């Protein structure tokens, strides 16, 4: 193997805010972007800054990207918020060329075409992907749109027309020649996709990496239903990129120092990474494979990484050769190489290198190890730390781990101070401090830590109450356990948790918000499936705290926040849509730089919310979004329950459990009101109770209903029933032969105030959604089934003669009407009525004057028109008498059953079961049921045994059934039923005599 430059270099740039990085096509220049500046670094001298450009704007630069084509290699783009800037780097200076404007929301990704030097694409959360031409910067060349905003856009490396975009967990493949719709949709991941990458060698291969811990490979030649391959990394994957050499993929994780941030995978053997690179202490923002230009050897590539820990690292050369060979021998894949680079500032530790078994590994590995050591002249003194070991062994000497862990603690948690640290003795004393609380905590680390051995926490000195200390310690142990179970370090999460808890205590005493202490269980109930907190929070909608629910019986349940519980949002701000909003709200510090979610928090609030760091699980409740207004009465309330308060402010911050409980329920959970809205509903419970179905004594029943309506002051219903009461009874038999001449007379139904008016009435009440009136009308006018009319005059019809409205003669009825009309002022208008009667269309105008008005408006007087005589009506056709005499037009009749059954449901929910059964009688089967015979009776009983005919509930208690019709019911229902009636609740069977 020829001489290789195995420089392992750590260039620390504490002045550069972590952001995006891009390496140009020459593999020499790296551009680092941050809030204010663009920093250009020569990768051959990574510690030196060549050029620094002040951007002079307030936005973070989210992406910087060099043009990858050699033709345009001097150009690069930067994106910030909704804009994209194009730059030129020439003669050691950067020049801004143009700004591309178009997006409505912040840009989530941008990509240069690999084949067309002037083409680039940008995508944004606004749902649009724009394709731009560098030479035409005024407007975009193409535009695609989708509902869900795109988070990634990537050009195919080989096909100039093809690009892919990711939308949450889905991928769309686009063709730039036809951008209207995506060529393909791939449902790729269950959670958000963080990166896409096209293969460098195969046109149709696409990789995607996601929050769901998987890297998936798709063949887009055909619509892919399932991935070609999946690598489960075990933790969310931030970026997965094809290697420019061999058949490999490089993944970077999203998580912090505890995990291995960068792994190189072979696509032939995906069970384990080939190489893992550890050393970065924070999220790796960008990783790039760079060709060392001095050595024009295709086989050698160097990995350049830029991390949030503000170090730029150049890793040992990787030879594609080596990679391939390793796959063949599959030795390294089972025994991965680990380059462990401690951070520069760590003191050197005496570390015994590795297990002896590994020295037996292949020569190439051996040589590599030597190379690494040889390179020490070039690298910082810590180079002797580099060692090779198995990732899964504890060999990464635990003391070193401990050291590193503590190092991390110091830098990440500002309110923590290390009082004493004894690495060899494996113990430490830490001091934590929040605004109001302080504590000293002693931690002992067992030898096996972090492998299933949790450290022992011991709170030495604190101003917390005893019960709080107990609580805090048990929480710490619990959290520690969950971490060490999987061999992870737990110090940092534990300390974060402790600080969070202490801050909350401070917060409580600050603003009396005890309820903030109500948390979700932490850690969350253990589930085998691992889902990220962020994903969960992002997708879960913000909890409702106000609501109104109707129930079946017309009651409305209303729950609200108490008036003194206010939202934190300012006037023009909406309530956040997802739980994430709440999370951001609690953690004003940026949580993740991955998502495009609004991170800002009203500045006025920052003093109210403690800056809590993200806990391993949501340590929050929706009530923390709201705060209570300070009210004077609250003080007195508190006084009432905890009289000892008042003198010492410190005491008041720790209320007794009772106090907490009481104030909480007083303050957070509002009252639930049950509201009666029946007055604005079209239906009325009282009317339902009083209503009589007009059948037996038609007109009388109508008048009874009229009175009922007037007692409920339902004016329009009064009018309706008065109209109905003057109609001839709808239950009429066809004229018998001896009254033959009646056929020649027009039926009432044909009159404008007959069937047509009735239709209008129905239409009117349909518009009002008055199912009650509709059902009553339906019951009144629904024709009897054929059998009923022909077979016999049913028992109730025998009662009919008692009614003076039983006459079949239209004119008789009319005459009667006339009489009743004289009671009103009808006689004043005979000529007017005549004209209406002569011209049927006017029935419409007539209606408008009466029924068409709204319930409250129309005066009773209008209804006198109804009582017009039926005078000059053209003779109707003889044969159609039957049809024409129908008052109910078929189009309405079809719906009658529905009206009645809905009303019956309503009556049931009001527990008016007898009324309900009575109403249900009028539901007409469309096809006649064959008449009962003796033989079928028993089957019928069996069949109908199940439900009560009155309440429709299963017959479980004492039940009674009719031997003839088979209808059965609960005894107590039947008792009340037969008190006033003698026929079956369902049919006309005289059940009263047949019950057994």
């Amino acid at each position: 193997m020829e001489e290789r430059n195995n420089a392992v270099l750590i260039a620390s740039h504490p002045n550069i805010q972590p952001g995006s990085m891009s390496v140009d096509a020459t593999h020499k220049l790296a551009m680092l972007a941050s809030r204010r500046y663009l920093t250009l670094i020569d990768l051959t001298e990574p510690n030196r800054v060549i050029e620094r450009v002040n951007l002079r704007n307030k936005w973070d630069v989210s992406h910087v990207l060099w043009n990858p084509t050699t033709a345009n290699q001097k150009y690069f783009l930067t994106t910030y918020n909704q804009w994209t800037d194009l730059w030129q780097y020439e003669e050691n200076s950067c020049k801004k060329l143009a700004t591309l404007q178009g997006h409505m929301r912040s840009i989530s990704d941008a990509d240069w075409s690999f084949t067309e030097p002037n083409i680039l694409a940008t995508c944004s959360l606004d749902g649009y992907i724009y394709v731009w031409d560098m030479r035409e910067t005024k407007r975009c060349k193409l535009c695609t749109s989708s509902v869900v905003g795109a988070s990634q856009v990537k050009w195919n490396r080989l096909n100039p027309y093809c690009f892919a975009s990711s939308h949450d967990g889905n991928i769309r493949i686009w063709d730039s020649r036809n951008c209207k719709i995506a060529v393909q949709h791939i449902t790729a991941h269950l959670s958000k996709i963080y990166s896409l990458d096209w293969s460098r060698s195969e046109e149709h291969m696409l990789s995607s990496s996601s929050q769901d811990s998987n890297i998936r490979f798709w063949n887009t030649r055909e619509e892919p239903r399932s991935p070609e391959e999946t690598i489960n990394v075990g933790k969310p994957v931030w970026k997965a990129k094809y290697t420019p050499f061999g058949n490999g993929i490089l993944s970077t994780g999203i998580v912090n120092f505890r995990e291995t941030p960068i792994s190189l995978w072979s696509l032939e053997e995906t069970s384990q990474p080939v190489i893992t690179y550890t050393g970065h202490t924070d999220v790796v923002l960008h990783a790039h494979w760079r060709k060392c230009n001095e050595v024009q050897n295709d086989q050698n590539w160097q990995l350049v990484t830029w991390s949030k820990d503000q170090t730029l690292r150049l890793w040992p050369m990787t030879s594609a050769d080596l990679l391939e060979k390793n796959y063949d021998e599959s030795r390294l894949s089972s025994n991965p190489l680990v380059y462990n680079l401690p951070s520069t500032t760590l003191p050197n530790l005496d570390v015994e290198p590795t297990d002896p078994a590994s020295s037996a590994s292949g020569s190439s590995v051996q040589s590599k190890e030597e190379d690494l050591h040889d390179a020490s002249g070039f690298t910082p003194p810590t180079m002797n730390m580099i060692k090779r070991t198995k990732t899964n062994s504890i060999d990464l000497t635990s003391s070193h781990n401990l050291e590193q862990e503590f190092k991390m603690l110091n830098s990440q948690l500002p309110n923590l101070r290390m009082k004493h640290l004894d690495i060899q003795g494996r113990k430490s004393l830490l001091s934590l401090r929040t605004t109001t609380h302080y504590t000293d905590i002693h931690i002992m680390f067992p030898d096996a830590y972090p492998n299933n051995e949790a450290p022992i926490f011991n709170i030495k000195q604190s101003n917390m109450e005893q019960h709080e200390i107990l609580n805090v310690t048990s929480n710490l142990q619990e959290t520690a356990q969950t971490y060490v179970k999987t061999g992870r370090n737990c110090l940092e999460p534990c300390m974060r948790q402790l600080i969070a808890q202490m801050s909350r205590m401070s917060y409580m005493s600050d603003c009396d918000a005890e309820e903030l202490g109500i948390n979700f269980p932490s850690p969350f109930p253990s589930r085998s499936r691992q889902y990220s907190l962020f994903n969960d929070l992002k997708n879960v909608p913000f909890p409702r705290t106000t609501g109104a629910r109707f129930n079946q019986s017309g009651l409305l349940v209303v729950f609200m926040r108490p008036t003194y519980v206010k939202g934190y949002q300012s006037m023009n701000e909406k309530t956040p849509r997802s739980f994430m909003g709440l999370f951001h709200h609690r953690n004003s510090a940026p949580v993740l730089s991955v998502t495009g979610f609004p991170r800002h928090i009203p500045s006025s609030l920052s003093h109210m919310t403690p800056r809590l760091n993200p806990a391993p699980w949501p340590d929050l409740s929706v009530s923390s979004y709201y705060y209570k207004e300070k009210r004077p009465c609250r003080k007195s309330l508190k006084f009432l329950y905890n009289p000892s308060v008042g003198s010492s402010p410190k005491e008041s911050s720790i209320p007794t459990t009772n106090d907490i409980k009481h104030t909480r329920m007083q303050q957070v959970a509002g009252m639930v009101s049950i509201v009666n809205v029946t007055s604005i509903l079209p239906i009325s419970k009282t009317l339902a109770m009083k209503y009589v179905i007009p059948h037996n004594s038609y007109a009388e029943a109508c008048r009874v209903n009229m009175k009922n309506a007037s007692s409920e002051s339902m004016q329009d219903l009064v009018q309706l029933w008065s109209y109905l009461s003057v109609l001839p009874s709808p239950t009429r038999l066809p004229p018998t032969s001896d009254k033959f001449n009646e056929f020649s007379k027009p039926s009432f139904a044909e009159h404008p105030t007959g069937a047509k008016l009735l239709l209008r009435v129905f239409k009117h009440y349909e518009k009002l959604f008055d199912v009650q009136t509709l059902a009553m009308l339906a019951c009144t006018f629904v024709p009897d089934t054929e059998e009923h009319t022909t077979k016999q005059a049913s028992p109730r019809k025998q009662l009919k003669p008692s009614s003076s409205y039983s006459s079949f003669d239209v004119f008789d009825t009319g005459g009667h009407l006339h009489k009743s009309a004289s009671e009103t002022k009808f006689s004043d208008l005979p000529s007017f009525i005549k004209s209406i009667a002569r011209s049927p269309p006017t029935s419409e105008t007539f209606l408008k004057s009466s029924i068409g008005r709204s319930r409250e408006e129309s005066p009773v007087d209008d209804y006198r028109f109804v009582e017009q005589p039926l005078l000059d009506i053209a003779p109707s056709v003889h044969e159609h008498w039957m049809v024409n005499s129908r008052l109910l037009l078929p189009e309405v009749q079809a719906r009658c059953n529905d009206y009645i059954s809905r009303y019956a449901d309503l009556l049931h929910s009001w527990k008016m079961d007898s009324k309900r059964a009575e109403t249900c009688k009028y539901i007409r089967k469309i096809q006649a049921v064959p008449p009962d015979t003796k033989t079928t009776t028993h089957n019928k009983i069996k069949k109908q045994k199940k439900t009560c005919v009155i309440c429709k509930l299963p017959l479980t208690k004492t039940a009674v059934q009719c031997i003839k019709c088979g209808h059965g019911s609960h005894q107590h229902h039947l008792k009340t039923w037969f008190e006033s009636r003698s026929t079956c609740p369902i049919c006309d069977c005289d059940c009263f005599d047949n019950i057994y």
Partner: protein
Amino acid sequence: MVSVINTVDTLHEDMIHDAQMDYYGLQLATCSSDRTIRIFEVKNGTQRLLSTLQGHDGPVWQIAWSHPKYDKMLASCSYDRKVIIWKEQDGQWNKLHEYNDHDSSVNSVCWAPHELGLMLACGSSDGSVSVLKHHGDNQWEATKINNAHTGGCNAVSWAPAVVPGSLIEPPSQNQQNNFVKKFVSAGCDNLVKVWCEKDGRWEEEQKLQAHTDWVRDCAWAPSIGLPQSKIASCSQDRRVIIWTCDEATGGQWSSKTLNEFDDVVWHVSWSLTGDILAVSGGNNKVSLWKEKLDGDWSIVSDIKKGQQGSTE
């Protein structure tokens, strides 16, 4: 005009997320962030705590009473990804079934109309909708619609049971029990989707697109027998949209914006006759809307903070 007949102090230790009356208006169930469900008997202005149901490990988002035909059952869903079906027997509430197959918070549960049998739809933040069907003997068959809504499903609501075509022309005898199974769902993809069961499989029948942000709730209006379907949906975009579809005119859905509110709208609920819509949202207000004869919507009542009914 609108009167409060009862105020219930729920004694929940955290915010309440849902409250529902049972079919007869006799019992009230509430659920809260304190992970419990409480059941009260409400009578003549008084309340009595009957039971506190514990079993969820996270905030309980929504509850639903079953139709009394199927005994007293209550379904609840929670952030802990579980759906629990509770059953009352001799005054004791017990867990009858626990459904665990969602990968994220379950945001909505809704019982199907009783005519369709005992069936429950659940919408989850993992984007899927599950339909649980009871087969007697506590056997529950789950059908899952994966990827119903990208980003998560926020609400589900069943359509009233109707026999196909029955509202236009009379159904024939053999159609009697052949109800159409339909429900509507709302999600984070800004869509409202109508699902219909065909040959035992759930198919997307309609995609209703008009909202510009997450759709938080949807509600299918109860039918009184008219040949018209009506859906209300509300969204993070602060709008409430009424979707209507006339069976007679070929099943095209048309949308109408009810109103644009000053904060996000969380919840819509239809009155039993389908003419009044209760709307509530982030501004802590509840308003009742009524459809006028000309088809426009007007506010009929505003239930203000402090929970007093007021007239307008």
